[in-house]
């Protein structure tokens, strides 16, 4: 009880701090405005690889700062002494810059350009500044200095991991309200609210060897690989090359007597002189798919000012297929997990080294280093040599046999062996650390606590190989018990890992191993002796969770900084039975932040392993999913950002339709002329006019979109027998026949007219939407079920234009247009075909009808389509030929009771249901779907069957899709016995007509049924499906 109260006190203190800051903030506004440009007081006067001649001014949180070309936002802010960048996700704790690269978890900012060009969640450690750069802190309100969300800190004792599963359940209907506030509090940055003006691009690339990473391993591998003379691609996510070697201490290691940066420069120059290698910077491999297929994102202009980037592509997605892949992805430094290890001013040791050596920025003036290994000593030496005071090095080890600790000793740097940091102080910036001695077995702390004042704490918990891409490719890991990390074990023969991503550390070892392995991998024998000077490294010790002097419940040892997951949360999850590592992850959200656990995952695993007493190797890891770092949606989509990439198919006559004011509808990928409104005409009026004209005079329709499949081969007739429900063997050459195609389950799938052009030659038509799937289905059957048939299918949909002319005058029009065919009924009856000439254009004319009128279809090579159409229009002028669109066509066929596959049918309708029993051959041995037609349910008499419907009020038009009932109830549910499939006002019959499928419909003719709409009920009577010209006289009119 008492402890609980005390911990509350601390948090009240934090709130006080926030308030205090607010007062300071308000009073400082004026001052800030006048003080326009801040000084670079943490920038060393020389050194580093930034371009000091190019000064850049930029804004952060409204204040203007300056930095240099080559700075990241992080390095430039640190140069100005700014550490506080953002607030954490849950507790809104102040957070600073933690790392120097892609693993950054704290320092996320909103980059601001304008509404359509703002980028949330950008890592300050990766984004390069340019003149005019502007960014803001996110997830805080009103400001990062004073953030009301920090009130959450006060409640932190009652909101541990998974608290939301345990509360917000009362009252039951209030979750929506709670959720509203939870959602507002959650999220990080803000989405753009307007369209993105930038351009994205794609590139496909094939190479012999892809090398990922340009550290000492990647560069060494490239040096060997270029000797093959084959096509090599080397990529690195950073703007410059060299990996972590690029910011190594200049004095401590040498390669062939060159300083690290000199060696990198020399190597890059040497590589660039080879024509067979392409080297890309700012290019991150996002995903590694099967068979060495890698997705990479290249940043081309995010580092440029608006002026410089004008007209340039923002990002390019590379799709690379590599014969061989060399992974040299390096390793990521780990933090240390102890109470309050998250304050601004606590940074990874390697990052601090990078800032001082590469950017010439000191991250603090009084530094404590906290380490478990020798690598942090290099940071200490770099800092010391550049005049930064090292207050102490706190090392959890008993001692080290390495050279660097010895050197630090010589430099007079205080080393506290076998000590640990147990706590840090400072709200928005660290100001001291609490240190205690570790017991022999590291399980607890002993002796007296003492404080060391500092403004920077560098932490180093060792390195974890970056095996993300390796495991994405299917590689298996093994846990290295001595070194506390997972490393590659087995993978495909066309891939190797080299350098620290393979668990190899130490410059000499990395370079030598890489040379040997690359030679072996590429079947070479090229050895380039390098003379490497480096410091001998000592042992490494590891403690996943450092001991504390407090009850663990009172501590906040962060594991996942961004999501505010502490070691206590992990313990709570385990205590509550969430034992699988995946459960721990999902319950505590550790590893689910935007860094996807790059910083904290190993500690989470380590803590679980310790508490559950399970070996790390048996525990396994959570799955590394692509992408390695977040991948811009725009880059994934490339040039198609502005519009969905699906081809627009236009008929050869499209231009004419456009010119004549047609409205179009999308049918599959096609644009089809829907109707042709005259001036001021509504769609309804246009369709009525077109339908009337087609029946009473002459109509013309562009039917080019219907699928056309050319079928040839000695078994073509047998093939059709198996594909369609009716018989085809006896169809005479020159005749056409309508066919229905079924699914395996006996349901209608597609329909169309097929014409026999020769002994072994047919042309099949399909529905517009079904063309592609019918073609692939038929190919599928041919190749897998009936390989014995000698049949060849060719899709010729795009090869022909089809002009359909109908109406009583159609014969006269055709006679004018196609001069060499005798159009007499005797010579050219319904359902037959003739070849003819339109001037010199060869054409196929079919006398078939979907409107019930006398009707001809002229098929010509597609590029003549428009000419033939225009000739028909010209010839039809005297008969007032009227172009009609798909809507009128649908109306006309409905008057005749003809079905549209996909409208009257929906995958549940058999030919018998359509009252088309006549089309099922009883004699044929088999056809697709035959067996299913004889199943108990398909044979059922009271299935839904196609009927006609007439509304009692002939003016009332039913809505397509409306449901039909026998009995209207005062409220739902009501028994639905069917639905309206097609419905129109027929101008030729002067009444409303509809087709419907109705349960037991065949027996209901004359019966009254009801269509209950939301506002009224419509009475209907079941009728025949054929509303007009039952005898079919008009076909020969």
């Amino acid at each position: 009880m008492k402890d609980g109260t005390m911990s509350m006190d601390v948090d009240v203190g934090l709130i006080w701090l926030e308030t205090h800051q607010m007062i300071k903030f308000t009073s400082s506004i004026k001052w800030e405005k006048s003080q326009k440009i801040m000084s670079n007081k943490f920038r060393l006067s020389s050194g580093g690889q930034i371009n000091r001649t190019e000064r850049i001014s930029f804004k952060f949180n409204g204040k203007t700062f300056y930095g240099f070309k080559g700075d990241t936002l992080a390095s430039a802010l640190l140069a100005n002494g700014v550490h506080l960048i953002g607030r954490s996700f849950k507790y809104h704790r102040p957070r600073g810059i933690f790392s120097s690269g892609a693993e950054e978890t704290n320092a996320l900012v909103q980059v601001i350009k304008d509404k359509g060009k703002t980028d949330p969640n950008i890592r300050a450690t990766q984004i390069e500044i340019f003149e005019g750069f502007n960014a803001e802190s996110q997830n805080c309100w009103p400001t990062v200095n004073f953030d009301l969300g920090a009130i959450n800190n006060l409640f932190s004792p009652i909101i541990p991991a998974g608290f939301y599963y345990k509360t917000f359940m009362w009252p039951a209907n209030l979750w929506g309200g709670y959720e509203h506030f939870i959602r507002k509090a959650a999220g990080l940055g803000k989405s753009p609210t307007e369209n993105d003006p930038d351009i994205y691009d794609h590139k496909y690339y094939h190479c012999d060897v892809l090398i990922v990473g340009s550290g000492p391993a990647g560069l060494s591998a490239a040096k060997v690989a270029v000797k093959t003379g084959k096509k090599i691609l080397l990529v690195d996510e950073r703007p410059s090359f060299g990996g972590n070697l690029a910011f190594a201490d200049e004095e401590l290691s040498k390669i062939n007597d060159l300083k690290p940066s000199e060696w990198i420069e020399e190597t890059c120059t040497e590589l660039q002189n080879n024509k067979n290698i392409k080297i890309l910077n700012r290019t991150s491999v996002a995903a590694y798919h099967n068979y060495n297929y890698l997705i990479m994102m290249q940043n081309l202009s995010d580092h440029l000012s608006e002026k410089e980037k004008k007209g340039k592509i923002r990002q390019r997605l590379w799709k690379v297929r590599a014969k061989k892949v060399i992974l040299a992805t390096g390793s990521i430094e780990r933090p240390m997990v102890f109470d309050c290890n998250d304050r601004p001013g606590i940074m990874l040791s390697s990052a601090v080294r990078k800032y001082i050596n590469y950017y010439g920025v000191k991250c603090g003036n009084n530094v404590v280093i906290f380490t478990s290994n020798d690598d942090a000593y290099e940071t200490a030496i770099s800092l010391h040599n550049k005049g930064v005071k090292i207050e102490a090095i706190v090392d959890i080890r008993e001692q080290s046999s390495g050279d660097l600790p010895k050197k630090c000793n010589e430099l007079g740097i205080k080393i506290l062996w076998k000590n640990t940091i147990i706590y840090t102080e400072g709200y928005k910036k660290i100001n001291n650390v609490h240190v205690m001695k570790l017991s022999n077995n590291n399980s607890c702390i002993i002796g007296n606590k003492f404080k060391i004042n500092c403004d920077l704490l560098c932490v180093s918990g060792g390195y974890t190989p970056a095996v993300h891409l390796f495991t994405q490719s299917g590689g298996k890991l093994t846990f290295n018990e001595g070194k506390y990390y997972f490393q590659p074990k087995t993978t495909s023969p066309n891939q190797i890992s080299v350098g620290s991503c393979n668990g190899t550390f130490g410059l000499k070892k990395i370079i030598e191993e890489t040379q040997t392995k690359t030679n072996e991998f590429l079947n070479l024998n090229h050895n380039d002796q390098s003379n490497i000077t480096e410091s001998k490294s000592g042992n490494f010790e590891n403690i996943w969770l450092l001991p504390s002097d407090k009850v663990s419940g009172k501590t906040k040892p962060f594991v996942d900084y961004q999501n505010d997951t502490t070691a206590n949360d992990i313990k709570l999850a385990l205590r509550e039975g969430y034992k699988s590592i995946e459960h721990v992850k999902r319950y505590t959200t550790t590893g689910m932040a935007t860094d996807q656990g790059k910083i904290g995952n190993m500690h989470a695993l380590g803590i679980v392993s310790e508490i559950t007493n399970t070996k790390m190797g048996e525990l396994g890891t959570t799955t590394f999913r692509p992408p390695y770092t977040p991948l811009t949606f725009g880059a994934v989509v490339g040039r198609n950002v502005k519009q969905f990439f699906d081809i627009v198919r236009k008929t050869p006559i499209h231009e004419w339709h456009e010119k004549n004011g047609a409205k179009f509808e999308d049918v599959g990928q096609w644009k089809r002329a829907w109707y042709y409104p005259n001036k001021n005409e509504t769609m309804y009026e246009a369709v009525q006019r077109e339908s009337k004209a087609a029946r009473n005079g002459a109509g013309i329709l562009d039917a080019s979109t219907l699928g056309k499949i050319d079928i040839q081969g000695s078994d073509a007739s047998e093939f059709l027998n198996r594909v369609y429900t009716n018989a085809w063997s006896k169809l005479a050459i020159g005749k056409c026949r309508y066919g229905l195609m079924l699914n395996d389950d006996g349901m209608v799938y597609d329909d169309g007219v097929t014409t026999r052009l020769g002994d072994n030659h047919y042309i099949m038509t399909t529905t517009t939407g079904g063309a592609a799937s019918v073609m692939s289905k038929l190919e599928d059957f041919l190749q897998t079920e009936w390989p014995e048939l000698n049949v060849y299918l060719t899709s010729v949909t795009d090869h022909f234009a089809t002009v359909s002319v109908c109406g009583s005058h159609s014969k006269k029009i055709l006679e004018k247009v196609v001069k060499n065919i005798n159009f007499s009924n005797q010579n050219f009856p319904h359902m037959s075909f003739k070849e003819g000439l339109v001037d010199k254009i060869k054409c196929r004319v079919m006398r078939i009808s979907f409107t019930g009128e006398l009707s001809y279809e002229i098929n010509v090579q597609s590029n003549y389509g428009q000419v033939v159409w225009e000739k028909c229009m010209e010839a039809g002028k005297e008969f007032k030929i009227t172009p009609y669109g798909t809507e009128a066509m649908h109306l006309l066929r409905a008057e005749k009771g003809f079905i549209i596959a996909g409208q009257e049918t929906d995958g549940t309708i058999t030919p018998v249901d359509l009252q088309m029993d006549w089309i099922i051959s009883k004699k044929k041995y088999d056809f697709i779907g035959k067996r299913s037609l004889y199943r108990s349910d398909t044979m059922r008499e009271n299935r839904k069957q196609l009927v006609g419907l007439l509304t009692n009020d002939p003016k009332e038009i039913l809505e397509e899709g409306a449901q039909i009932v026998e009995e209207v109830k005062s409220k739902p549910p009501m028994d639905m016995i069917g639905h309206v499939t097609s419905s129109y006002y027929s101008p030729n019959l002067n009444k409303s007509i509809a087709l419907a499928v109705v349960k037991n419909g065949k027996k209901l003719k004359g019966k009254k049924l009801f269509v209950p709409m939301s506002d009224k009920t419509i009475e209907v009577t079941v009728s025949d499906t054929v509303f007009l010209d039952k005898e079919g006289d008009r076909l020969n009119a």
Partner: protein
Amino acid sequence: MRNKYSIFSLIKNSFTYHENWQRAWKDPEPKSFYDVVIVGGGGHGLATAYYLAKEHNLINIAVVEKGWIGGGNTGRNTTIIRSNYLWDASAGLYDHALKIWENLSQELNYNVMFSQRGVMNLAHNQHDVRELKRRTHANRLNGIDCLWLDTKQVKEFCPIINCSPNIRYPVMGSTLQKRAGTARHDAVAWGYARAADSMGVDIIQNCEVKGIKRKGDSIEGLETTKGFIKTSKIGVAAAGHSSVIANMAGLKLPIESKPLQALVSEPIKPIIDTVVMSNAVHAYVSQSDKGELVIGAGTDAYISYTQKGTHEIVEGTLNAILELYPIFSRLRMLRQWGGVVDICPDASPIISKTSIKGLYFNCGWGTGGFKATPGSGHLFAHTIAKNEPHGLNAAFNINRFVSGDLVDEHGAAAVAH
């Protein structure tokens, strides 16, 4: 008795630094005999065990899971919950589930975060309009809430949708089911597990079924990696691996398994307050409470048991997303993953007895099983306990593939379920 979760228990436990919370479920070793063994510790399996214990007075029940509970499609889906299905049988089934969802957090005393933020299904062509209106009418007459929105209303309800008539497939309207929404998928598995466990159900993780022992037409037990378990009733809820289990009993299921993918963006502040699905261009999106855009992609074109998919599917989906929501192009994909979905020829599930006495299957949910979890478990429990289907799942029997009495939901379900 298990402690109840509430704000008061959170406060109370804060004084002891949360060190006294009970386990949400035990992790027992299997006993040698159970009355019923459920194979598959996903939402469906755990819910089945829960309702067997709660409503059918069966206590001696085990759920065996080859990995960790909720690790299959329960933890991989895009958490959409709706019941606006076309056919009576489906509407009955999914609305039964939706009604249970509405009180599930309270029933389980575990907040599953069921968020009734509405689900829209967009129409992009005349055919879509006709089919979606048909569904709206059917829903209305089945007593299921469903509205039809025209393009203007679509824009009002979800302003970030690109309703320009000049895009490749313009938005021509939409259905809207307001009672529909999303839930927290992991919580569903954990909540059912905790509630079932507290009634005595044994939840056995890391226990893979290796064989089914039969005696004639009856079940004798299961061979597992944790030894033989004797039982006379086995309920299988193994999603993508249902066919594998069926094969062990000598059964063949009419199921194809394919990888289905999904992805999330980095978290952002609220930008979309509903769930929008589009079958025609194949893109659906919602925003998690954490702020990530949750985007469903399609299935790979071929059959496979791999839980990852190809890049090209993701590209196609994002392409459609960026046409409908062009403001999203600067957002970034944080994570992509896949799950193995079990698809029946009619896109409807199987909750059924089989020709083997004591062997029951709950599978074939394809791309849309999450939404049905509570209803599915409830009805499957009934079917197992009574050895006959509940009225609401009678239509989803396995014999329909012989008789032809299918519940064809391809129109309503397609891939985006």
